[in-house]
């Protein structure tokens, strides 16, 4: 799966939880879910569950730990779906 396609899918997943729309529109790989998009930390669990469903993968706890930015999440997803 291409990085661009994963990015599009991921954007759809995170959109309902985003509180900072400006940061969402200007999203880059470095964008942080919590400090930039102002996503409530409990919603990170929702995002992980949605990612698992959408890409049909299982995110291990060590991987979840790193999924605090858009770029890190895309990389983890890409390695799993390959």
């Amino acid at each position: 799966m291409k990085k661009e396609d994963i990015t599009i899918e991921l954007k759809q997943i995170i959109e309902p939880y985003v509180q900072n729309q400006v940061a969402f529109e200007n999203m880059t790989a470095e964008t942080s879910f919590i400090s930039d998009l102002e996503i409530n930390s409990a919603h990170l669990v929702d995002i992980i569950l949605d990612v698992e469903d959408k890409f049909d993968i299982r995110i291990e706890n060590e991987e979840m730990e790193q999924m605090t930015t858009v770029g890190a999440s895309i990389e983890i997803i890409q390695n799993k779906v390959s």
Partner: protein
Amino acid sequence: MLGNDVVDLKLAKQQIRWNTKAFQQKVLHPKEMNQYNSSPLSYNDFWKIWSIKETAYKAHQRNKNHRPKFNPFDFLVEINSSTSSKVILDNYEYNIISFVTDKYIYSYTASNDVYSVQNFDLNLKNTFYNEGLKRQYLNNRVIKNEYGIPFLLENNKAVPISITHHGSYFAYLR
């Protein structure tokens, strides 16, 4: 140690999956699940343990000064009593007080040299109730380091501060 976390129990209802095993397994260690008779945990039990973990995370991130992580699993909560709990990680021990009402749950690192200010009343030692407290009151006085850890600017000094805001509730600890 400095960490606090408030959960607005009305707003937390938006977490529509909170009571699924899939959701709770991402947050709770099997050892924690075993402390309770019911699995998944009840609403208040779950959000209480969540707020304890968030509190310990904030205190620990400041101690280690590490980049943000999402590792609720690492913070193993030992419940001592209805108000007191303990988290031990990397040789650090965090003693945490939790205050549970039907509207909110508030947890903070208990210590004689810190105090908490909230827009809700706790009626506990070293806590101050300020009904009109607003997040904006702190906004232009708070700076964050490279990892997002907050400090309050006061008399040209950067004083460590922990801030929590969820729904109608706001508190800081310093």
